[in-house]
């Protein structure tokens, strides 16, 4: 016993001596290492806001509200040679298909013009979402990289996929969610710069809608009336304003992967899908359940209502959730047909 204690103490002595030497080395090297990390960050900041001469230290987090859809990590003021604030760079992270951490620069003008966007980390799927940060991936529409396309855009115009910015083909969820993250960053930039041109982004939801929520989100101010449901759907509605019927919606159910799925599909009178919302879904979390996320269902808005969604290429399915995607596509096709019927009957 005594021998064991003696050995234990000797071991402890060696350990203590090692730790002491290590801490000496650490004291000398840690400021140098921190300096490197700082330089890398400064280089990144200059990349997204090249006009700035220098950047402030991170601002006190009490100066802006916590993000709803993205976590605001740091806010740096971009300063010119005389120390005036010419813009801000927001460092933020949040959910994309998996996760992303980015920096975005916003100029201090009335539209909060974007000076640059850069990914610091992106863990989405290689070959799909990962292309968002690929400098070699040039988008067909605008001829720029995905992250490069935002330079010069006005943050006040919002981030609407397919409208104010271009998606990566085959990576709708990543493309939509990056827009949501940028929306949050733009709002924070507006807060810090004292601009009111950006309104607070609504929290991105990933839970089922109620009938009332879905109808009010899609049809907004229009009056909604319940009408006789055509065969094949559970309920039908028409939406109208002072000029007459503007659109219709139906609720349809069908079999999905685990259980049934219930969707609300709305079309407008020009035979364009006004919106799709999930009212009930009980498939695999992380796979089929991703259909609850706005980045999935929002892709149908604006598509022609007579599109045969059972054909491949008409929409972006959820990767590795083929059965759920196919079931929902079938339901949306059926629902859109019935909604078109309802609209034409009402007019």
């Amino acid at each position, binding site marked *: 016993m005594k021998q064991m204690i003696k*050995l234990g103490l*000797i071991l402890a002595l060696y350990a203590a001596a*090692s730790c002491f030497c*290590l801490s000496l*080395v650490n004291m000398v*090297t840690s400021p*140098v*290492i921190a300096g490197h990390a700082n330089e890398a960050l400064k280089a990144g900041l200059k990349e997204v806001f090249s006009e700035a001469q220098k950047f402030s230290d991170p601002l006190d987090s009490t100066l802006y509200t916590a993000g709803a859809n993205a976590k605001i990590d740091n806010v740096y003021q971009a300063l010119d040679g005389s120390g005036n604030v010419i813009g801000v760079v927001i460092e933020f992270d949040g959910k994309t298909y998996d996760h992303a951490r980015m920096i975005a620069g916003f100029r201090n003008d009335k539209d909060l013009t974007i000076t640059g966007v850069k990914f610091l980390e992106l863990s989405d799927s290689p070959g799909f979402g990962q292309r968002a940060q690929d400098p070699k991936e040039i988008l067909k529409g605008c001829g720029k990289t995905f992250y490069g396309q935002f330079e010069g855009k006005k943050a006040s115009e919002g981030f609407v996929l397919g409208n104010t910015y271009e998606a990566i083909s085959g990576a709708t969820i990543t493309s939509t969610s990056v827009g949501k993250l940028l929306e949050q960053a733009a709002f924070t930039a507006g807060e810090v710069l004292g601009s009111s041109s950006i309104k607070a982004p609504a929290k991105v939801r990933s839970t089922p809608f109620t009938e009332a929520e879905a109808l009010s989100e899609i049809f907004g101010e229009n009056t909604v009336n319940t009408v006789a449901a055509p065969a094949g759907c559970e309920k039908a509605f028409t939406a109208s304003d002072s000029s007459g019927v503007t659109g219709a919606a139906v609720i349809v159910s069908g079999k999905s992967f685990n259980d049934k799925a219930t969707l609300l599909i709305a079309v407008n009178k020009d035979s364009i899908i006004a919106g799709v919302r999930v009212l009930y879904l009980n498939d695999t979390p992380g796979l089929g359940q991703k259909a609850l996320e706005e980045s999935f269902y929002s892709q149908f808005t604006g598509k022609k209502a007579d599109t045969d969604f059972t054909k491949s290429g008409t929409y972006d399915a959820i990767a590795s959730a083929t059965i759920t995607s196919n079931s929902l596509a079938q339901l949306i096709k059926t629902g859109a047909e019935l909604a078109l019927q309802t609209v034409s009957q009402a007019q």
Partner: protein
Amino acid sequence: MNKNLSIFTNGLIKENPLLILNIGLCSSLAVTTSVFNGIGMGFGMMFVLVMSELIISIFRKLIPDAIRLPIFIIVIAAFTTIIQLLLEAYMPSLSKALGVFLPLIVVNCIIMGRVESFASKNSPLSSVIDAFGMGFGYTWVLVVISLIRELLGSGSFFGLKLIPEDYTIAFFSRAPGGFFVFGLLIAVTAAIKKSAQKKEGSVK
């Protein structure tokens, strides 16, 4: 002097850790994709080996036999962390290139092997010379492997592009290529050893 010289050359050729003793192989295969990495790893490992053999040789009479292995590990781990911190601060590009294999120096069998079989039984001077011999022996084999793999796999030598990318053989930059080149070197070593033995046999 002669004794010390023979200790030094022992590590270089006769008891080369990689080719003859066949220890410390994992890191040698992983970091030899470029000559810069090979040299960097060689010197990093040599630093830990020299310092560990020195300290353990100095304290060899004060290390109780029953707990010698934990103490060896404490010393080796401490020096591995020290070289890690020094590289991260003063040579960050090398530290990034070596990546996880820098902290893995602590489990490099060469260091544990030499500390146990040599440093714990010999004088500090002999131990340091042995460490340098083993370290250079490890480094020169690493450089030869990296030369071949970098030239054939990436078409460059120490960063200088020599062969256009279309003619490079990616196989050599991957793990199987590492094994392949290493196997060739062992075969060459075995052939040299055999002919040396034959010569000795015929002289006798």
